[in-house]
C-alpha cells in the first residue's frame, strides 16, 4: 500500500496513482518508506509539520493583501544607501521573461547565450559608468561588494593586512566590513572626518606611519551626501603601494567625476539606485570594477567574448581559474554566483535611459534636493550641518523634536528621511519626487509644531 493519498491532489505534483505504482516498481520499493530505508528510525520525521493547511491561490492572495495593508505607503525622502528612483515599465516586464527568470548560472554556453550576452553588456556599461577597465558579472549588493574589495586589496598586497576606511563611509557598509575583517584577520583603521569629509592630511600621516596598508576605502557621495574632493588621494595611496577603493552610488556616476578619473584601482557600490525597487532591503545588485592590471585578482564571475565552432561570435564564462570551485580552500572569495537577474535589471535600465537619460535623472535629483534644502533652511527650523557641496542627499539639524517630526510626517504619508545616530536628519530627493511632493514636505511642518 502507498502511504500517500493526496498526490495528484496538488497542482505542482503531476504523479497519478498509476504513475506512482509503476515508478515504485521500477525503483524497487513498495512505498514512500522504502525510499528512505537508509534513514535510522530514531531520526526519521514521522509527524505533521506545524504549518497551516495548504492554501488555494485566492487564499494566498488574501493573506498577502492583508499583510500588505499593514504597511504604510509613504512618499520617500529617505536614502542612506537605498533610494526611491523611477523604474521604467519595460523592466519588470522583461525580467519576467521566464527564459531569464528560471535559468541558472550559464554553464552550458550553447543554451545560455541570453544570459551571457546581457552580462557582457552589463560589464560594458558598468565600466563606462565607473570609468574603469574591467567589471565582474555583479555581486550581491554594495556592502558585500565593498567587503570583497577589502579582501581583494589584502590578497593583492604582499603581507599587508590593514585597510584604511573613511569615517564618512555608510555605517551599514562599515558594519559588514567589520564582520569580514574580524574573521579574515584584517585590521581596519578609520580615517577621521573633518568638516564632513575624509581628512587627507591625517590619511597622509596614517599612510606614512602605519605598516602594511593594503588599501584605502572612501565613499562618494559620502554618508552625509557630500561630494568629496579626492584630489591627491590616489597618489598618496599609490606612493605607499596601497590600492585606492571608491564606493560610489551608481546613479550619481552619470554626472559625477568617476572612480576612474579619481585614479581608483577598485570601484564598488550598489546598483540599486539604477531604478531597482527598494523592496524593504533587497534584492539589489553590487557592482565591482577594477583596472586591467587587477583582473586576475578580481572575485566573482566574468563573461568574455569568444567564437564557436561555426565561427560565430559567442560569450562564455571566463578566467574561471580565479574562482572558488577551482581554488577551493586557496580561494580568497567564496562567491560562486552573481546577482544575474538584477544585473539584467541594471542593463535594461541603462539601455533605456542611455547616455542622456541618466544625466537628466541625475540633474532632476540634484535640483529637487537643492530646492528642498533651500526651502527647509528658509523655515528657520532646519540647518545644514556641513556647508559642503552635496548631490541629492543632505544632512540637517532640526530645531524641534525628531520623534514628533517622524510621527506627524508618517501619519501624513511622508517618510522625512533617515535619523542619524548623531541626532541629525538625512534627507534624500530623487527624480521621482515632484515639486508638489517637495512643497508638501515643507507645508507639513506647522502640523508638527501643532503637536508640541
Amino acid at each position: 500500500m502507498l502511504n500517500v493519498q493526496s498526490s495528484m491532489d496538488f497542482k505542482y505534483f503531476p504523479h497519478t496513482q498509476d504513475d506512482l505504482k509503476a515508478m515504485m516498481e521500477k525503483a524497487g520499493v513498495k512505498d514512500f518508506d522504502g525510499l528512505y530505508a537508509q534513514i535510522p528510525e530514531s531520526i526519521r520525521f514521522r509527524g505533521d509539520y506545524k504549518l497551516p493547511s495548504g492554501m488555494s491561490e485566492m487564499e494566498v492572495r488574501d493573506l498577502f493583501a492583508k499583510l500588505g495593508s499593514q504597511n504604510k505607503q509613504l512618499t520617500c525622502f529617505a536614502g542612506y544607501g537605498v533610494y526611491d528612483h523611477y523604474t521604467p515599465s519595460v523592466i519588470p516586464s522583461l525580467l519576467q521573461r521566464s527564459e531569464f527568470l528560471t535559468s541558472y548560472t550559464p554553464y552550458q554556453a550553447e543554451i545560455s547565450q541570453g544570459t551571457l550576452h546581457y552580462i557582457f553588456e552589463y560589464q560594458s556599461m558598468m565600466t563606462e559608468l565607473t570609468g574603469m577597465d574591467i567589471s565582474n558579472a555583479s555581486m550581491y549588493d554594495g556592502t558585500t561588494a565593498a567587503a570583497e574589495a577589502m579582501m581583494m586589496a589584502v590578497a593583492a598586497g604582499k603581507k599587508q593586512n590593514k585597510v584604511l576606511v573613511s569615517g564618512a563611509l555608510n555605517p551599514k557598509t562599515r558594519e559588514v566590513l567589520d564582520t569580514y575583517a574580524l574573521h579574515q584577520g584584517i585590521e581596519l583603521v578609520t580615517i577621521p572626518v573633518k568638516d564632513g569629509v575624509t581628512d587627507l592630511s591625517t590619511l597622509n600621516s596614517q599612510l606614512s606611519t602605519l605598516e602594511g596598508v593594503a588599501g584605502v576605502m572612501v565613499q562618494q557621495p559620502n554618508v552625509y551626501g557630500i561630494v568629496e574632493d579626492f584630489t591627491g588621494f590616489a597618489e598618496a595611496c599609490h606612493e605607499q603601494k596601497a590600492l585606492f577603493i571608491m564606493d560610489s552610488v551608481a546613479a550619481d556616476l552619470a554626472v559625477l567625476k568617476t572612480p576612474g578619473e579619481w585614479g581608483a584601482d577598485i570601484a564598488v557600490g550598489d546598483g540599486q539606485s539604477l531604478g531597482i525597487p527598494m523592496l524593504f532591503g533587497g534584492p539589489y545588485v553590487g557592482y565591482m570594477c577594477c583596472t586591467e592590471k587587477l583582473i586576475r585578482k578580481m572575485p566573482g564571475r566574468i563573461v568574455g567574448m569568444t567564437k564557436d565552432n561555426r565561427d560565430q561570435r559567442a560569450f562564455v564564462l571566463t578566467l574561471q581559474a580565479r574562482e572558488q570551485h577551482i581554488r577551493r580552500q586557496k580561494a580568497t572569495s567564496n562567491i560562486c554566483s552573481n546577482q544575474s537577474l538584477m544585473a539584467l535589471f541594471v542593463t535594461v535600465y541603462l539601455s533605456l535611459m542611455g547616455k542622456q537619460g541618466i544625466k537628466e535623472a541625475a540633474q532632476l535629483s540634484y535640483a529637487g534636493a537643492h530646492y528642498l534644502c533651500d526651502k527647509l533652511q528658509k523655515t528657520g527650523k532646519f540647518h545644514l550641518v556641513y556647508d559642503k557641496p552635496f548631490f541629492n542627499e543632505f544632512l540637517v539639524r532640526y530645531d524641534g523634536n525628531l520623534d514628533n517630526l517622524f510621527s506627524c510626517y508618517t501619519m501624513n504619508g511622508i517618510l522625512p528621511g533617515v535619523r542619524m545616530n548623531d541626532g541629525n536628519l538625512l534627507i534624500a530627493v530623487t527624480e521621482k519626487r515632484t515639486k508638489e511632493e517637495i512643497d508638501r514636505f515643507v507645508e507639513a511642518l506647522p502640523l508638527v509644531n501643532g503637536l508640541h
Partner: protein
Amino acid sequence: MNNRLYGNLIFELSKEGRKGYSLPKNNFGNYEIPASMQRTEEAKLPECDELTVVRHYTNLSNNNFGVDTGFYPLGSCTMKYNPKINEEMAAQPQFQNLHPQQPADTVKGALALVKLLEQSLCELTGLAHFTFKPYAGAHGELTGLMTIDNYHRSRGDMQRKKVIVPDSAHGTNPASAAVCGLEIIEVKSLADGTVDFDDLQRLVSLEGANIAAMMMTNPNTLGLFETRIPEIAKLIHDCGGLMYYDGANLNPMLGACRPGDMGFDVMHINLHKTFSTPHGGGGPGSGPVGVREGLQEFFPVVSPYYGNYGVMMRAYAYILSLGREHVKEVGPLAVLNANYIKESLKDVYELPIDTICCHEFVFDGLKDKSTGVTTMDVAKRLLDYGYHAPTIYFPLLFHESLMVEPTENESKETLDGFIAVMRQIAEEAKTNPDLVKSAPHTTPIGRVDDVLAAKHPVTTWKVLKNEIL
C-alpha cells in the same frame, strides 16, 4: 561579426539622439550641477528607442533555456518549478515601495512576514532561529561558519580553527571556510561515497581540541544518506565542535528527516532550491541560516537589512501553497523521480554506487567506454534534444561524473522522454560517435572556444569595438 540582427550587442543598435525614456520637466528653477563635480568623459551608453530595447532583450531571452522551457536535471541545483503566484506576491506595491529604514510601526506587515517565514523554516528544519541576512547559499555557508567561529571565540576557545569537510563536498565549503579564516581538514569517503567513520575518528583523536565544526550535506553530493549521522554528530559534539548542515540538498528531506533531529547545530537553506524561488540566471538567491537555541546571539552582520526580502516573499508564498499536507510529499516525490531515472538507465550508464539514492545520483559516464564519447559529449548532445544537461564533472570522485537531479515537479512522461533520449545517445555513441562528439548541432551557437576567451580576455564593448574597427 555576427550578421543576425538579434545577435548584436545593444551598443550596435544605438543611434545618436534616440531615447527610450521619459522624465518629467525640471521645474525646480536654476540648480546647475557645478562643473567641478562633473565627469569630463561621458559614459558611452547606448541610445535606443523603447521598442528596440524590448525586442533586443526578448530575442536574447529566446537564446536561453529555463525550467519553464524544459527539463533541467542539473544535479545539486534543485531546478524545480518556480510558481507564478510567488512572482505575483513579490511584485505587490505594498512591499515594493518600502524603504528598509522606515519606522517599524509603518512596516508591520513586512515584519510579520519575516516572523512567519522564520517560524515555518524552524518547524521544517528542527532548529530554533533563523537570520535572513545572507544573500545566497555560499553567503549562508560563510554566515554559518562565522556564527560558529563567534561561538568558540566567546568561550575563549580561540584555537578551534579547523573544519572537517568530506572530500566530496561542494567547492564552496572549503572556500567559505577559508574566507572565514578557518582551515579545512578533509575526511575520506568510503567506496560507497559516505563518510569514512574510522578516518573521522582518527581526525578527531588527532585534532579534537582544534575542531570548530564539521560541515556536511546530508544526503551527500552523491545523493546518498549518511546513515551514521547520529554517531558522527556525537563524535563531533563530544570533542567540542559544532555540526554544520549545508542545506544545498535539503529538498529530499522534506517529509523525511530534519537537520535539527540529525544532530546539526547550524545550517543554511537555499530558498532558491528547496523553496522554489527562481534562480534568475545565477541570482538573486537567499541563504538564511538557522541555529539551535542559544546560538542566535552569535549571528554576524553580513548584510545591512533583511537580506533578499523579495526572495523571502516568494518562499513564503510557496510554503503557504503547499501547506502541511503537501510539503511532506516534496521529498518522497523528488526521491522517487531520481530513483526511477537511475534504475531506467543503469544498464547503459556506469552507476558506481548501485543503491537507493535520494534526490540525485551520479553516473560515471557511459558504460561502454570504447567509443571515446565523454560525459561532456553526452551533455552537449542532450542540448540538441531540448534538455538542459545534468551537472558534469562534479563531484570530483569520478572521472566522468554526470549528476542528475529531476525534482518532484516532473511527470513520468517527462522522465520517460529523458530516459529515451539518454538511451538514444548511448546508442549513437556506438553507431555514430562523431555525431555525439561534435554536438550540439541545433542550438543557437556551437561549442565555444574557452581557451581563446581566457587567453585573450575581451570583456567589454569598449575593447571589442576597437578590435572590430
